[in-house]
């Protein structure tokens, strides 16, 4: 069975819904099969890690074990999920003691449906954890993406924002300091990409937003201000936490800057979908808090 | 103090490893480990030869016959031999030798050839520790049941 397994994570079912919608739409347009991981649970996430590393590792391991039963590469579009799953695979490989505790418990308590009924769930390290940027650039290929573009987004200036967790501390598929995978995909979509956007890997403060909003707003303000100063029409993102953060706190951020301003924060998959001629609704564009119409005006798929 | 009273009970077993180190690389690595005050397992007894190519297979058989639990041969990395290619001769000989010994039932962890340059004291430390751990886990060297003591075979029988 070709294609990939797909781990949405909690955010893509909530605030990150447009990411899921646009990713699935683009995958379909490129004829890439994505199958949602059956009965997945929360990845363990950053917040959990702060309280209890072992429990967080256990949560991630259950997902990896379910994925191992299928065997195909696992795509995790949320940067935080991608990192937690990747780090967990690393921890289990490096720490045999930890691995035996967690995997033993897993086998004793959890099951996976099998032809003849439920079978014990067991973990093995066989499944690579992938990010959509990695898959689109390294498996599908920028040329294939470019070939699917029917309505290039000419004249749209985009600041590519990668956030932190796909380049730090691990950076298996892109340059740690100057990542380019999103740049190349957006170029293929016909965008003018701001290659010199210096904050493309700066933290947006998402994990602080719900807890210490004042602090997070400062970071958001800096990222937005600089992108606008460099002429960006849109900021492209690859993570639901970054997206929500940069979008939802805009008015506060601009207030703090003493300026007026709005800038759409779109998933790179939404931009790719637009360039492929997919409809706004299919890409979840109607869910944006910031009106996208002004920057997308005059483009034909505006239906 | 008298000789060590190594009792060969499973609990207190400490292996004795005979190490043949070439004068130019591995012996110097052991010197460097010393000047760097690295600490490693005290199980090996180092015998200096000019080149790993000097290690006669009979030395290895003899060591096992006299009670060694493991034998370590240390030479220069391929291409770095002080005598151009003595280490490659050692490798060829070692490959055959280890096959002979494993055929006899000797665990392969007991006989090892390592390339350790004069600068690689850390590697020397790691090999010393690793080998001591592995052989400690295997227990004392005993001839496999039915095997004839591998006392030095006649020269014609061992690979040149």
């Amino acid at each position, binding site marked *: 069975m070709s294609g990939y397994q797909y781990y949405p994570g909690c955010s893509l079912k909530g605030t990150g819904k447009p990411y899921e919608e646009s990713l699935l739409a683009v995958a379909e347009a490129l004829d890439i099969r994505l199958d949602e991981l059956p009965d997945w649970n929360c990845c363990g996430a950053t917040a959990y890690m702060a309280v209890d590393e072992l429990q967080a590792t256990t949560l991630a391991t259950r997902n990896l074990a379910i994925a191992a039963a299928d065997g195909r590469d696992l795509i995790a579009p949320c940067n935080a999920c991608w990192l937690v799953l990747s780090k967990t695979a690393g921890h289990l490989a490096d720490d045999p003691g930890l691995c035996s505790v967690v995997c033993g418990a897993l086998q004793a308590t959890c099951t996976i449906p099998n032809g003849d009924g439920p079978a014990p769930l067991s973990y093995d390290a066989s499944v690579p954890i992938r990010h959509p940027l990695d898959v689109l650039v390294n498996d599908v290929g920028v040329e294939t993406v470019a070939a699917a573009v029917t309505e290039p987004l000419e004249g749209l200036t985009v600041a590519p924002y990668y956030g932190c967790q796909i380049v730090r501390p691990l950076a298996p598929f892109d340059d740690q300091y100057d990542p380019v995978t999103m740049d190349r995909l957006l170029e293929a979509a016909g965008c003018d990409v701001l290659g010199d956007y210096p904050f493309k890997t700066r933290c947006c403060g998402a994990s602080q937003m719900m807890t210490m909003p004042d602090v997070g707003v400062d970071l958001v303000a800096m990222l937005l201000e600089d992108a606008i100063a460099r002429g960006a029409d849109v900021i492209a993102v690859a993570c639901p936490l970054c997206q929500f953060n940069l979008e939802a706190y805009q008015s506060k951020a601009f207030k703090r800057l003493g300026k007026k301003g709005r800038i759409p924060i779109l998933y790179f998959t939404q931009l790719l979908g637009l360039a492929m001629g997919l409809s706004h609704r299919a890409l979840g564009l109607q869910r944006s808090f910031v009106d996208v119409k002004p920057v997308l005006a005059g483009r034909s798929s505006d239906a | 103090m008298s000789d060590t009273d190594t009792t060969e009970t499973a609990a207190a077993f400490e292996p004795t490893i005979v190490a043949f180190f070439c004068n130019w690389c591995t012996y110097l690595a052991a010197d460097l480990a010393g000047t760097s005050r690295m600490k490693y397992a005290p199980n090996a007894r180092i015998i200096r030869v000019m080149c790993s190519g000097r290690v006669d*297979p009979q030395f290895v058989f003899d*060591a096992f016959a006299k009670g060694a639990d493991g034998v370590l041969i240390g030479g220069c990395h391929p291409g770095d031999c002080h005598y151009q290619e003595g280490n490659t001769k*050692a490798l060829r000989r070692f490959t055959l030798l280890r096959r002979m010994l494993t055929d006899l039932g000797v665990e392969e962890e007991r006989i090892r050839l390592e390339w350790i340059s004069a600068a690689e004291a850390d590697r020397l430390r790691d090999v010393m520790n690793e080998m001591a751990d592995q052989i400690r886990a295997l227990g004392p060297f005993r001839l496999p049941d039915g095997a004839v003591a591998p006392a030095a075979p006649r020269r014609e029988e061992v690979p040149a």
Partner: protein
Amino acid sequence: MREPNGTPRIGVYVCHCGTNIASTVDVAAVRDAAESLPGVVLSRDYKYMCSDPGQELIKHDIAEFGLERVVVASCSPCLHEETFRGAVGEGGINPYFFQMVNIREHDSWVHRDIAAATAKANDLIRAAVRRVRFHEPLEPRRVPIDPRVMVVGGGIAGIHAALTLANAGKQVYLVEREPSIGGHMAMFDKTFPTLDCAACILTPKMTQVRAHPNIQIMTMSEVEEVSGFVGDYRVRVKHHPRFVIEDACVGCLECIDACVFRNGKTPDEFNLGLSKRKPIYIPFPQAVPQVVVIDPEACIEFRAGCRKKTCVEVCAERNAIDFQQEVTYDEVTVGAIILATGFQAFEASRLPQYGYGRLDAVYTALEVERLVNASGPTEGSIVLRDGSTPTSIGIIHCIGSRDKNTNEYCSRVCCMYSLKLAHLLKEKTDAEIYEFYIDMRTPGKGFEEFYNRVEEEGVHFIRGKVADVYPEAGNTGRVVLQAEDTLAGMVRKIPVDMVVLATGLEPQPDAEDVRRTFNITCGSGGFFTERHPKLAPVSTFTDGVFLAGACQGPKDIPDTVAQAGAAAAEALALIDAGHIELEPNTAFVVEERCSGCRTCVGMCPFSAISIVDGKAVINEVLCKGCGTCVAACPSGAIRQNLFEDEEIFEEILGVLTHV
């Protein structure tokens, strides 16, 4: 198997080495254990066996107790085997009736457990006592030394070493890869802390090298292969074509003007690409030899054929240009070799967070050396890539140094050259200058005073490693440096027009190949390893190969010159002796046991073995004593002095007798 000749009377000496051995090995117990070994008539422990009284003790005991064999358990034989052999010889018995046991480097220094270390010492001494019974009387081998020396690398280290040797009357080959000697020092503007001009002090020495009757310079040349041993090294040197006949060119440079290229198009290596040169060029004005060179990659003669050949025309009857030149080889014989192959500056683009290669405002320190130099690409005025003059400059220390992600070591020279560049840039631009340092390291004569002087000049010193360098928004051309000012405890963002990266020193990219060619070792940082960090700082583990300058580790010009002088002196001491004594560890054939099977012939890497009248014969002069043939001989007919089969079997038995 041979038996020892009777039962020789053996003396055992256990050294405390102060507390170096005695704190981990119970020396009294070891002494007592040795006393009970067969053949041992005397066993002593002593504070420092290598001291004069320690050696006297051995000599005295040989006379008093009629010792016939001596075993000393102390440090590594690399340090004191010669010392004790000397004492044994002076005591009146053959110096090779001696065996040394390493209970310091291989025992007390590497173990914590006293019982285990003591047991190990006992085993090793028992092995030596058993072995020494079989020792035969031997004489060291004497081989003559070729009085010529090769110096590899024509930077300041190689230049100084070559001149020192040549002035002492020795014939020197100076091999340099580039078209001119001079190395990195020729690229510098001023030298710290005295600020004297690098060219002013270097070029007279370069000219002396050129003029010296005892020095043969080989530029555009590399050592391809080295064979032989100390005193008799055969070195194969590869000469790359210059396409200009060195002896015919007078350095008039008219050909450069005449070149069909009106302007240079190729990045000028000497100016690190900050200017362009033509296909025919001279590396820099003071180049030695003062001879032009043609770059075949750039010259159209090599690509398409040039009908005009204007360079050839203008050269006229001197006829120095030769497009037909090819790679040639030379083989020379020398007694000693000095390696002075220098360093390479850390490649700044390896740390993308500092923006080198991406942001125009970012320069490396070496580039700035060229910018401030009057003969550099801007004739000494500080003009940035965008044509402007900076009003604020940030200098970032430790780029590629003190960073486990690149190089853990401190490059030693960057603090001082950064201070120098701060001074020169301040003098030329009056810009605001910010130095970002981690620790300011100025341990040298006049260094701290220079630091004070630069502080007085108003340079800002910020203690903190720069975390980010990014372009200011709004196309100002400026970049922002972000760092914690650790002394103030605040994060600062400082916009500057120019960034200078104080790149560290790394081994040459081909240091690993060079190491292999000369059969020496590299340490963890990749620099060549000296024989002993304190007592043999310019020697290597290969006799007759010496080190000078930054190829051994980062160092400044004064230290480099001092080391080059030391290497020259060591080489002189070696070759002036006229001959060298070698270990008598050669192999020999016991004729009656040899079956003439020829197995050994193929084993010998030195072709020292031949078959004469159906029996193997080993040429003692060619034999280097590896012993590979001994191990290979199927009939046990080959023996090796100092490493006899019996001696090694006895050692094996000795270390295992406790089991």
